[in-house]
């Protein structure tokens, strides 16, 4: 009988999450007692995120590779990298939030609540056990629901209601799948479960459980045909929360799928799981782009285009048909970074040009080049990256994914994937360039000129992501090399 002890060294391994936890407690109390201003809480939250970011970077540099809590939580290079990406994304989202006029009931909570949500996402990355995974997932979902529901307009609450029901149902499916796996193996640890599962004995049961798990995570990622909620919820949220949903939540769900597939699903039923995912990805690639053509409300547009990018992010996972190799992991991480840069930038652009009290609409970019030419240039950089045109991070991300898909899979599957990606890219020109057209060729919109230039936080986020995209587009090699080296031993082990 082992006794449960949590040593200080264990907490050090969980440092990024611990810092977030401490930070959220302190900030909440400070918000209650000090009647401090809105912005200072926001900046406090940013400081907390930076602290966690520093911790994650230190872990990465020291090559921490350890498990705590009997193996339920693992800190390795891949997790640390994912956490860094998530944290950077969350910093961007917070920057947007600080730079956006308040449209919610809340004051300080608008910032502090991002932290537990992010904590859920980060735990999800490190979790190697189903209970932890479930709790982390719900921590993320419930915090996000509250963030959405705090919007003053009624549609925010409606969106929150939708997400509660949908999140509940998809969690139920996930749990139902897990319960069968537990019934077959008597454990909830990924690794032990993978070693105990016996396809010879309960093949059909296990397959059903696998499909349920994949489908429920696909709902969280909002892959077609489970995508309808994402549009409504995205449109109901305020701009920074929509950004959080489309970047952090989505990325966390994709990492979860990746983790679960590699650790539990692929060793036993790679063919079935890959087939299911293949169909989902193909359908998503086509449908998402076509749906996006019809959207004029920006939040809906980016909710849908996010689905297409998510499908693209899943291509390296299924490209090989078995456990993905180092290349696939590296390419995945590269595109994840690119995705964060371009989407955070896009939402920063939306927030900058948005008039409070309305739904963000593509007309809000009208004539931007006349009142803020440099901002328009930055937005063009972001759009280029989104559309996958050079010189941008998105271009090389797509190139690498295509290379991977075609070199890994012989036969038609790789070609089908590649062709769909390319077709989707062409369609995406049409709706991404709609923004460019508005900026350059339409007379000015209703927003008074001063508002764009003076929002320093959102401007910083926009420029950070635009320059980051362009820099990664000019010199993608060093990041690829760095990522490949960092995760090489994680993948091999």
């Amino acid at each position, binding site marked *: 009988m082992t006794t449960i002890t949590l040593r200080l060294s264990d907490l050090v391994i969980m440092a990024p999450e611990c810092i977030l936890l401490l930070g959220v407690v302190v900030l909440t109390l400070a918000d209650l007692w000090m009647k401090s201003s809105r912005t200072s809480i926001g900046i406090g939250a940013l400081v907390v995120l930076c602290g966690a970011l520093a911790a994650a970077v230190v872990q990465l540099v020291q090559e921490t590779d350890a498990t705590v809590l009997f193996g339920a939580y693992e800190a390795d290079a891949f997790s640390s990298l994912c956490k860094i990406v998530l944290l950077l994304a969350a910093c961007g989202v917070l920057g947007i939030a600080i730079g956006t006029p308040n449209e919610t009931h809340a004051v300080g909570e608008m910032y502090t609540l991002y932290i537990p949500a992010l904590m859920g996402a980060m735990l999800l990355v490190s979790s190697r056990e189903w209970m932890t995974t479930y709790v982390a997932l719900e921590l993320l979902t419930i915090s996000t629901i509250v963030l959405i529901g705090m919007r003053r307009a009624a549609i925010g609450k409606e969106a929150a209601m939708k997400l509660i029901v949908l999140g509940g149902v998809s969690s139920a499916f996930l749990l139902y799948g897990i319960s069968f796996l537990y019934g077959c193996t008597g454990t909830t640890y990924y690794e032990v479960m993978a070693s105990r599962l016996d396809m010879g004995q309960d093949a059909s049961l296990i397959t059903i459980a696998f499909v349920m798990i994949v489908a429920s995570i696909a709902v969280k990622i909002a892959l077609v045909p489970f995508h309808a909620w994402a549009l409504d919820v995205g449109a109901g949220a305020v701009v920074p929360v929509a950004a959080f949903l489309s970047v952090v939540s989505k990325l966390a769900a994709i990492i979860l799928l990746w983790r679960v597939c590699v650790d539990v699903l692929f060793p036993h039923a790679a063919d079935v799981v890959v087939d299911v995912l293949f169909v989902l990805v193909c359908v998503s690639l086509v449908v998402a782009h076509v749906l996006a053509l019809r959207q004029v409300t920006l939040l809906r547009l980016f909710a849908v285009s996010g689905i297409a990018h998510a499908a693209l992010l899943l291509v390296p996972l299924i490209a090989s048909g078995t456990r993905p*190799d*180092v*290349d696939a992991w*590296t390419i995945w991480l590269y595109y994840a970074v690119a995705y964060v840069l371009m989407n955070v930038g896009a939402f920063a652009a939306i927030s900058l040009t948005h008039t409070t009290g309305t739904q963000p609409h593509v007309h809000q970019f009208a004539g931007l080049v006349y009142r803020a030419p440099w901002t328009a240039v930055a937005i*063009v950089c972001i759009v*280029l990256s989104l559309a996958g*045109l*050079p*010189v941008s991070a998105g*271009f*090389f991300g*797509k*190139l690498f994914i*295509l*290379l991977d898909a*075609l*070199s890994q899979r012989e036969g038609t599957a790789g070609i089908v994937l*590649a*062709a769909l990606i*390319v*077709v989707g*890219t*062409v369609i995406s*020109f*049409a709706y991404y*360039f709609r923004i460019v*057209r508005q900026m*350059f*060729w339409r007379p000015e919109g209703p927003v008074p000129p001063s508002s764009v230039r003076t929002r320093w936080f959102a401007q910083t986020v926009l420029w950070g992501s635009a320059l980051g995209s362009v820099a990664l587009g000019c*010199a*993608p*090699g060093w990041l*690829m*090399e760095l990522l*490949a*080296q960092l995760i*090489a031993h994680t993948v*091999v082990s």
Partner: protein
Amino acid sequence: MHALLAVPFLGALVLACIPSAHMRAVRVVGVLWCCVPLAVAIGLFVQDDTGVSYTVHAPWIAWTVGGTAVHIPWHVSLDGFSMPFVMLAAIVCAVSGVAGFLLTKRWKAFYVLLLLLTTAVFGVFVARDVVLFFLFFELTLVPMFFLIGMFGKYGRERAANVFLVYNGIGSAVLFLAVVLLIVHAGSFAVVGTPTMGNSFTSDYAVIASNLAAMPHDGMHTVLFWLFFLAFAIKLPVFPLHTWMLRVHGEAHPAIVIVHSGVLLKMGAFGMLMFSFVLFPEVLRGAASALAVGAVVTIVVGAVMACAQKDVRLVFAYASLSHMGFVLLGMVAMNDNGVQGALFQLVSHGLISALLFFAVAVIETRTQTSDIASLGGLGQPMPFASAMLMIGALAALGLPGLSGFVGEWLVLVGAYDQWRTLTVIATGSVVLSAVYMLRVVLGIVFGPPPQKHRADVRTIEAFPMVFVAACIVVLGVYPSVLHDVTREATKTIVAPYEQLVDVGGGV
């Protein structure tokens, strides 16, 4: 060598930093800076008379994990093949920069975008790496989209959208083809590792030698046609040309100069470099079909040009017809054909620069490009009319001007293989005299207009004289160009002729 890429790019940066309120400064710096790449190119041309090429080969993007390596080198080279294109691009971009003086607004945007476009165009012509080539190729898309959409007539936005859609499809196909090509033929042995096959490079030279060593299979055919389709949109070849008419009809002449003068040439350049040189076996099977396509393009262009009412559309269809000649020369794949095609490309670039500059001058005076409402401009505008005349005569292939040499070489090159087709193509040369003279005579002669029309200013006259001089020099003394391209042409056609020889022996 890198100055070629750096100079225009720097210019774009510098111009972007000048406040647009200083209109005069923007225009002066813009025009002067557009001429600097020309000076650089001329410098390179004069220095590199012997055919020794400038090459830079440096690692750019590379990562290695386990046994897998992916290398995307920075491989740029200015050899006999790319030299004529680079010279052409430099001249045309400078001319377009001067033509930018005729715009009425937004000079800053024009010059910034034009210089960016120049950088990308140079990049396309010197890249010897598949990914790098594709990158520059795509890069031309964005400034061109803005240029078309921001300046021009009422329908310019639609033209820009159509441009984006067609070329977007083209680049998507190209994207797929590039990736397939790398995966299929880019494998190389990394020094120090025993296994090969999992490591990829996008270096053009490596891919070419790999392909040459490989047995012919279905993938080659697929790749050939993918590349062909991508570049056929750009060139354009007959059923894929509609976007180009819109651009010619709606965009400002200063932009059409670049578009018709250089961007179409990228299609020919890419087609030759990727489809025809890399896959000679496929070309051999498809050559006759492609020749038919080329002749259809020639004839359709010529016939349609006769029926147009707008000067710009006449010239647009004339371009289509001339691009058909280029295609015909390239598929003939012998010394004369390829030399002729290269010559035709350069000459057509110059001719359309001259013609559209003249159109720009006329349009700024008369506000129209409708043939019916123009006429009798010879009297008030003798200089512009003379230039229009020279351009038209060169375009219809008058001996002594550059248009003749290219078409003649192409026809000679194609005659051995397809006699009937060549005769038909020759017939269309007659048609070209019809439509060109109809337009030009209509504009130049006739009753002089009521209103006063001022003739060209010095700044307008200078580039026109320069281009016209180039056309005459090329026509009278073609060796200027031939000496540069001769060696390159030999290497291009060598694998194909070898193949034909072997096939003939059996």
